[in-house]
């Protein structure tokens, strides 16, 4: 599929003496992980469709330091943060959107104390605002009437109190939204947080992602909707572990909207 997506960089904008409306912070997962790259591209297609004037940092972007901070390596986190803040402030960035709740949280809550003050939005909130402004339209299409459950990312939901934006988007898709027993404030972690993504789990009777996937399977969804590239990986692995990959898909909400709109 030779698709044509426009991904301007901040350096290009700077060269033209222009400033974008919003910076799209892609994140490590969105840049390098094959599964997450699809989410990144789907979101870019939506931004293109809505004529959002955005740019990415491209090769000037670097890890926010989230895994380092949650793992306890404050030095490494603050080194990463200092570098990123220097770049962001250098471009006079005011508004950031990201598809990763971990990047979202750290830049929204923890960068201000280090001199990085931006309006930071998770892509579900941003997409919702595009809909409200009438810049993007979403119709049920392919997902109309399908049973969908939403897995709340810890760093978006419990961590920052955002529960409704992703659900509002799903409602726009006219899906049959079913909630897991543990949802919203009580949602169970996918098992990736706190830098667990990058280490083997401690000994136990089950992996967290499998336990969480079992909870999702209980409500018999056709799609497990996610809003975080790490949750996406964990839930996808969980679905595979339960041999259900033939009838349960794990998709980011941005991908669902892009698919529904045939983008």
């Amino acid at each position, binding site marked *: 599929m030779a698709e044509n997506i426009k991904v301007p960089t901040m350096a290009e904008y700077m060269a033209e003496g222009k400033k974008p409306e919003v910076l799209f912070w892609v994140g490590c997962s969105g840049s390098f992980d094959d599964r997450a790259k699809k989410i990144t591209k789907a979101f870019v297609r939506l931004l293109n469709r809505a004529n959002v004037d955005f740019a990415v940092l491209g*090769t000037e972007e670097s890890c926010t330091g989230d895994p380092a901070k949650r793992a306890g390596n404050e030095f490494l986190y603050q080194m990463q943060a200092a570098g990123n803040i220097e770049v962001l402030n250098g471009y006079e960035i005011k508004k950031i959107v990201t598809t990763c709740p971990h990047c979202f*949280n750290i830049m929204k809550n923890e960068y201000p104390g280090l001199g990085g003050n931006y309006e930071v939005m998770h892509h579900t909130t941003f997409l919702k605002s595009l809909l409200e402004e009438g810049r993007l339209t979403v119709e049920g299409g392919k997902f109309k009437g399908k049973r969908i459950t939403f897995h709340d990312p810890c760093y978006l939901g419990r961590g920052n109190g955002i529960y409704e934006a992703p659900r509002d988007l799903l409602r726009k898709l006219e899906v049959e939204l079913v909630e897991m027993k543990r949802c919203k404030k009580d949602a169970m972690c996918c098992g990736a947080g706190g830098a667990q993504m990058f280490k083997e789990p401690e000994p136990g009777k089950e992996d967290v992602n499998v336990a969480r996937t079992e909870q999702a399977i209980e409500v018999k969804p056709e799609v497990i909707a996610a809003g975080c590239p790490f949750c996406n990986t964990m839930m996808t692995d969980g679905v595979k572990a339960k041999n259900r990959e033939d009838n349960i898909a794990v998709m980011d909400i941005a991908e669902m909207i892009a698919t529904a709109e045939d983008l």
Partner: protein
Amino acid sequence: MQILAQIVFILALAIGIGIFVRNIRRMIRNIKLGREIDRTDNPGARWRKMAKIALGQYKMVRRPVSGIVHVIVYIGFIIINIEVLEIIIDGIFGTHRIFAFAGEPYRYLIGAFEILALLVLLGVIIFWIRRNVMNIYRFRAREITSWPKNDANYILYFEMVLMTLFLVMNAADYQLQLNLAPHYAMTSGEIAGAFPVSSFLLPLLDGFSNSTLIIIERTAWWLHILGILFFLNYLYYSKHLHILLAFPNVYYSKIRPKAEFDNIDAVTKEVQLMMDPDTDPFAAPAEPEGEAEGEPAKFGASDIFDLNTVQLLNSYTCTECGRCTDQCPANNTGKLLSPRKIMMDTRDRLEEVGENINKNGKFVDDGKQLLDDYIQREEIWACTTCQMCVEACPVGIDPMSIIVEMRRYLMMEQSAGPADLNNALSNIENNGAPWPYNQMDRLNWATEN
């Protein structure tokens, strides 16, 4: 005789309250062993949170069964304590039901106390059944054995006995009033109080002489008030301190988003120094401000001295209800980590240090610390920092913050992170991503298919 009783009562009261005050002062001294943390900002939001969560029991009722029963016991406990005020005044001055002159309102009040006492009794029985008969995981987890298990049951037995004594006391009192016994019966001929519950106990007292009834009434009265004084002092040694500490604990709890971790200022200074091109690399290190001479402050925490005062207050407040552990993804999947155990260990170590200070006048190194001697590294590394424990706690405890402090110690003081995690962090350091990809390839996704 009457004077003697009054003197004994005043002595008992003084001793009971005296020991309580001593224990509370020790507790405050122990809490102050922690690092200072400023949680005095935004008092409006803090008072509101306290009203909602501590006073209003907002989080308790998120689990309806235990929540509603708890609310009944809580309301009963608080309101029945108004009666304790009268008992204390009667005890000091040798009076009988001093507030009875209020007439009708007094009757309503005593009647309400009786109904509440019965409800508390039933509530406590339900709690006992939940804890001992039903198979509820959080009451049977591995950290709830020996003392923690017994402690919980002792409190329940205690409340059962106190409520029974209260009702027996009222029944005997009522019968004495009906018998027009001197000192008990009011001169007006009215009945002091109303006894909707204890009047059902009257058949049990049938045929007893006034002197026997007085013995029953006095025995129940004395055991009840002495029991309350004992309970007051039992608090410090038990998980039941939450009845007092829930309020300050919620007040001083974090009001920022749960996913926001604090930035370590000392690290910020180091990083600024490293990134400043004007720094003289040969300059003698400046004396860090506000630190004890010689020894620089530790990064993270390996013992209670490295935790902040709010975290130590948290440990005294913990009721060991286990709602945190019950929803912890690591614990749910059989890992060693239990957020409740983190709090219990912190308190146990803090008490050990406190005892050490009581004995030696100041802390004498005992060769132990919170990390390793109480909390295992395997527990620390199993946390997903999902904040479920923080969300679940009905009294605003933050077990996750202690876990994070210990990770900071292990990472920055000991370089003792798990090897696979260290690889990811090296990658971040070297190429700006947790995986070994080149930073220059970061935009490849935009052009590849």
